[in-house]
Structures are given as C-alpha cells and as structure tokens.
C-alpha cells in the first residue's frame, strides 16, 4: 500500500485528500509555468493597457486640490438638470470609471444624463484642518453653484457614494433648495445599525471605530495630522487578511491566461493602491461624531454651527445599497427613509459588495438604468 493511499482501513475518518506526489509536483510545475507566463505578460503591460478612468471629461472648476469635471455627454441634448457625483475621501473617484466596459459613469452617460464629478484630490498636511463642513459647505457647495450657474438651473441631481453619500446627505439637509433629487449609494446613515446584528466578516470598521475611546481618536488626529493613505488602505486590507493573500494565489492563478480578466484584476489593483491621505479633522469627526456617536441619523450632527436636520431633506431620495456589503452593513443604511422629511423615498438593493455595486457585472446591469429611470421620472 502506498503512503498516499488514504483509503486504507483503520481508526478514524479517512483523509479525503487524493493528491499523489507526482500530481503535486505536476500541479506545481503547471502553476509555475502559468505564473511565469502571467508575470512576463504583466511586466510588459503599457500605460495604455493599465489606464483607468478613461471616459472623456473636462475640468471646469478647481479650488485648492479639488477639481470639478464634466464628462462629455453621450447625447446631443443631455437630461437637465445635471447629476453631480461625490465620491468618498478614502479612495479616488476613478472607481466609477474603472474600465470602459464596466464604467458606472459611462452607463449614466448612456442614460442621457449630464454627469459631473467632484475629485477631492490629494490632501496634504496643509489640509489637516479641513472638516466635513468645509467639504460640504465649501467645496461641494462651490461645485453645485458652479454647475447651476453654468446650466442656468436652480438645483441639480446629487449622487453620493459611501462617505460622499454622507456629504451629500448633509448638503441636502443644509441646502435643500439646491438639490432636485438625492441619490445615495452604499451610504452609511445609521452607524449603529449593525448593533445586535453583528455578523462574521461584516462591519469590522464599525466595531473597530467603536473600540477606540474618543480621546484615542483625538490623539491619532493630533499625532498624525492627515491619516496617510497607505494607513487607510491597510485598514481595508485588515478587513480581509486571508482574502488579500489568496487573491494572489488561487484567484490570480485562475485568471492569468485570460487577458480580459487579468486586466480587470490589475485595474482594480491600481485603483486600490491609490489611496489619498485623509484630513485629520474629517477623520476625527467621521470616527467620533458618526461611527461612535451616530449623530447623523439622529439629526444631531453639526457642521459650521448648523445642525444637519434630516427632516429638511424633502426632495425625492433614492437609497441604493449592496446586498453583500461588508464595509457598510445593510442594516446601517436600509430603512433610513423615515428619518428624512421626504414623502418620496425609494430603496434599491443591488447584488454584490461595496465596490461591486459599481464594477460588478450583475450590479452594472441594474444600477445605472435604475438611477437614470428614477431621475428622469422626477424632473
């Protein structure tokens, strides 16, 4: 009987591993050959092939490190008023236009919408004192003002993503006259919604933020000024330590010979690696006022001395959440409609995870058409 014959009778459960030494070495050789081919291909890739965020756009306004882009419309007479998208500070806006074939922004343009995007840029130490109020009442308000003047409209459609969704929620509450329709995507609203509903692998950021004392957060802000982007990135990596190892083994090996899937993987890696620094004051408010004290959903958050009263959000609201979101647990965003002052509140569930909402195949088929239809029905 060979040493690898695990079916031999004896005490206990037979080991259900049927791998011979020859098979193990053969598999290793195959994987090495595939890794070698893949690595040579990867090393030869050009900037054109690795480029992300390629949808044509024009810079129309700037202030400090913040830029406002208008994507070139896909139709001669795009739907008015325009849509302004606000992404989070923890990543770059390119995620909504990762690749031409799975570009959320291209799909919105395809819906005939007129799309603007605010790029928060790369904050440095000089921006450490920027607070959420500066982003909401400063940069975002400036962008809205610029677009409204440019198009001769009194209000526009505002679309927020994740942290950007919180910013747009605050904006809509503080400047409701400027927001025609509010679209929130994967946006945390009730930061304590996960309490009592904890599930393994989801909501780690909520638990981690609440495990810190308020003075810990103050000390971090004071010691580091701006939270380095790499540290923010590590916080996300920490949420999935095993997956971030196996994606370079089992996952990557499976797609190395598939050019399209390999480029998908690399484009995502490129986006992940580009993490901006996070202004210390925003981080302090984000962790203390929101994650720890959950002030937004209670309408207790104050920006620049003004209370963010969700009851003032009287315009139509579409709240999109991802069914498999482990960063923003569904319980932290679903069911928030009763806190808003609007009588026109809609929720839309899309398949996939937090980022998959914008780049996943199934979600892509649903998201942009649903948003386009929802907005067009409310003009």
């Amino acid at each position: 009987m060979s040493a690898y014959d695990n079916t031999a009778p004896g005490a206990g459960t037979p080991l259900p591993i049927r791998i011979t030494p020859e098979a193990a070495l053969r598999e290793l050789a195959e994987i090495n050959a595939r890794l070698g081919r893949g690595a040579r291909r990867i090393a030869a890739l050009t900037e054109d092939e690795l480029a992300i965020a390629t949808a044509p756009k024009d810079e129309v306004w700037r202030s400090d490190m913040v830029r406002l882009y208008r994507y070139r419309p896909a139709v001669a007479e795009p739907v008015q008023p325009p849509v302004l998208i606000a992404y989070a500070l923890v990543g770059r806006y390119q995620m909504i236009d990762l690749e031409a074939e799975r570009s959320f922004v291209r799909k919105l343009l395809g819906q005939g919408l007129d799309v603007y995007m605010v790029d928060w840029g790369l904050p440095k130490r000089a921006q450490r004192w920027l607070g959420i109020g500066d982003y909401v009442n400063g940069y975002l308000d400036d962008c809205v003002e610029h677009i409204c003047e440019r198009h001769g409209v009194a209000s526009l459609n505002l679309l927020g993503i994740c942290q950007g969704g919180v910013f747009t929620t605050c904006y809509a509450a503080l400047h409701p006259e400027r927001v025609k329709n509010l679209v929130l995507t994967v946006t945390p609203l009730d930061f304590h919604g996960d309490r009592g509903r904890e599930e393994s692998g989801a909501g780690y950021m909520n638990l981690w933020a609440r495990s810190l004392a308020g003075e810990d957060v103050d000390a971090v802000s004071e010691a580091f000024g701006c939270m380095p982007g790499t540290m923010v990135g590590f916080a996300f990596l920490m949420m999935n330590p095993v997956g971030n190892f196996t994606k370079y083994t089992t996952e990557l090996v499976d797609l190395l010979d598939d050019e399209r899937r390999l480029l998908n993987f690399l484009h995502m890696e490129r986006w992940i690696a580009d993490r901006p620094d996070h202004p210390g004051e925003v981080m302090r408010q984000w962790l203390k006022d929101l994650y720890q004290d959950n002030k937004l959903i209670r309408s207790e958050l104050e920006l620049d001395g003004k209370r963010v009263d969700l009851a003032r959000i009287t315009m139509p609201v579409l709240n999109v959440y991802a069914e498999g979101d482990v960063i923003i647990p569904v319980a932290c965003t679903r069911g928030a409609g009763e806190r808003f002052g609007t009588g026109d509140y809609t929720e839309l569930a899309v398949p996939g995870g937090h980022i998959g909402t914008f780049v996943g195949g199934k979600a892509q088929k649903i998201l942009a058409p649903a948003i386009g239809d929802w907005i067009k029905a409310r003009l």
Partner: protein
Amino acid sequence: MAVSAADDAAALYAAWLGALPGFFRAMVPGGMPERGATTDSHEWHTAGPHPAVRPVLDAMAVAQQAFGQLATDYARVLGGEASARTVEAWLEASRGAAQKAQDDLTALAAAAAGRGQSGVDGWGAAAPARDFLRALAPGLDPRAPHPVTEGLDRTFTALADAFGLAPSRALVDACRELSVAEADRLAAQAGYFAFVARTWGRVVDGVAARLRELGARGESIDSLLALVRLWAGVADRSAHEAMQSEEGLRLSAAYVRAATRAHGSRNRVVEILSELCNVPTQAQLDEAYREIQELKRRLRRLERRVDGTSRPAATAGGEP
C-alpha cells in the same frame, strides 16, 4: 527618524499576512518540514515593469514561493512513510506544525516585548534622535540618566535655566518619554502578534472538521489548489471571528493607542530639536495651517453673504 503611520499599520497587517505561509504549510501531514530550496520567485521579473503592477508582481512572487513550498513539502511527505492516512492523524501531525509556527510567532512577539521592556533598545526607529542627543550632550543617556547629571539637574535647575539650558533638559525628558512610549508600543505589538498566532493555530482544527465533512460525504480533494481554497475558507472565517472578538478589538485598540503615543513622543523630540536649530516646528506650521483654514472659512462666509442675494441662480439660459 520619521516613522510613518503606515509603518504602524503595516506592522499590524504583517502580523496577519507575514504569519500566513507558516500556518499555510501546516496543512502538510507529517509535520512541517525544514525549509528547503525554493523556486527562484524573482526569476521572471523583467526590468522596468509599469510601477502600477510592481506590487502585484511582488505579491505573485510571495504566493509562488508559498505554493512551491507547499507542493514540494507535500510531495516529499506523501512520498515517504510518515503520511497520515486519517483525518485524526493528519490533525495530530498538522497541529504539531501549526504549534511550531505559533511558537515561532509567539517567541518573536516575546522578543519584541522583551526588547521594549528591558530597555536594551526601546528606541526603534527613533534611534537617530538618541544618537543626535548623545552627540549633543555626550554622557547623557536618557535611558539611564547619570546620577551626577541627575543631582546637578535637581540642584542647579534654576541656574541652568538662567544659562539657557532648559531646552536640553526638555529634550532629555522628551527622549525618556519616547523611550518608554516605544517600549509600550513594542509590547502592544507583541500582544497583538501573540493573539494572531493563537488565531492561526485554531485554523488547523477547522480544516480537520471540513475534511471530515468531505470524507463523510464521500468527496475528496484532488488538487493542491483545491486544498488551498478549503484552507482559505476556514482561515478566513477564523480571522474574521478573531478580529471582531472582544479580545481582538481590545488588543488592536491598545496597539493604536500605544503607536499613537509613540508617534506623539517622536513628534515632541523633533519639535524640541527643531526649536534648538531655529527651524519651524510642525506644531507651528500646523497652527499656521489652522489659521489659514479659519481665514478661508471666514472668507467663504463673507462670499456667501455677498452672493446670497443672487441665489438661487436664474432658471433660464446657460448651457446644456
């Protein structure tokens, strides 16, 4: 001297990621073999890949090395006489391997903690500050203050201040604080490392349970990649449960606290040195940034007040 926040975060992440290959190899029945020759993981690195793909190539090299080790170990063990034939035997053998990996990591953690607590060198990345201090004031070792200087300090503090020596005393105090904070940071890091080691150690039991389930259903694992996937599924759940546990959260918060304090202590040393050298300190720059930001806010409020009459904008004209 600067140690970035990313270094602290990387240390936490490395606790998870760096330990993976060792526990990964615990899947080899018959115990963890000695580290043998591995494939040259960098042989296919060509010159000048695009910067955006370099991290991917590096990660592939690590993955290839780990996988190569697993495959060759498997082939060696399965080809010998020590093969496990039952899940129980596999579990026993793998536990030993996992225990060894756990012991290695725990020893590393203990060494890190000892290095901090013993005061042998708790300076870590702040060593340049220590060296600068020694150059500035030979004989003044902040970790073991000389009794004579201590006595002089107590007796002639006021006189020393009168001669403008206060900054050097402040520097010594700041360096002492830094040394203590660095030691605490290392101890907190060690505590976290040990916790991670215990977590990975439990994965073996989970893998054994999965193997039993497969065996009971008459299914089998026919490739190393499939075995890795099974292991990853179990390890993923185990890691999440550990990180979300009360102990995991407490230890990571303790580390954040200690790392922040150490960073703040380094900032303080640099601040004193900057003042001694007549260089603007970060705190002074931060204060200037704060004032600029406040002025911007005031300007914005004024602009809004002036523009207030023109809002909302006209509803006609403009462009689509």
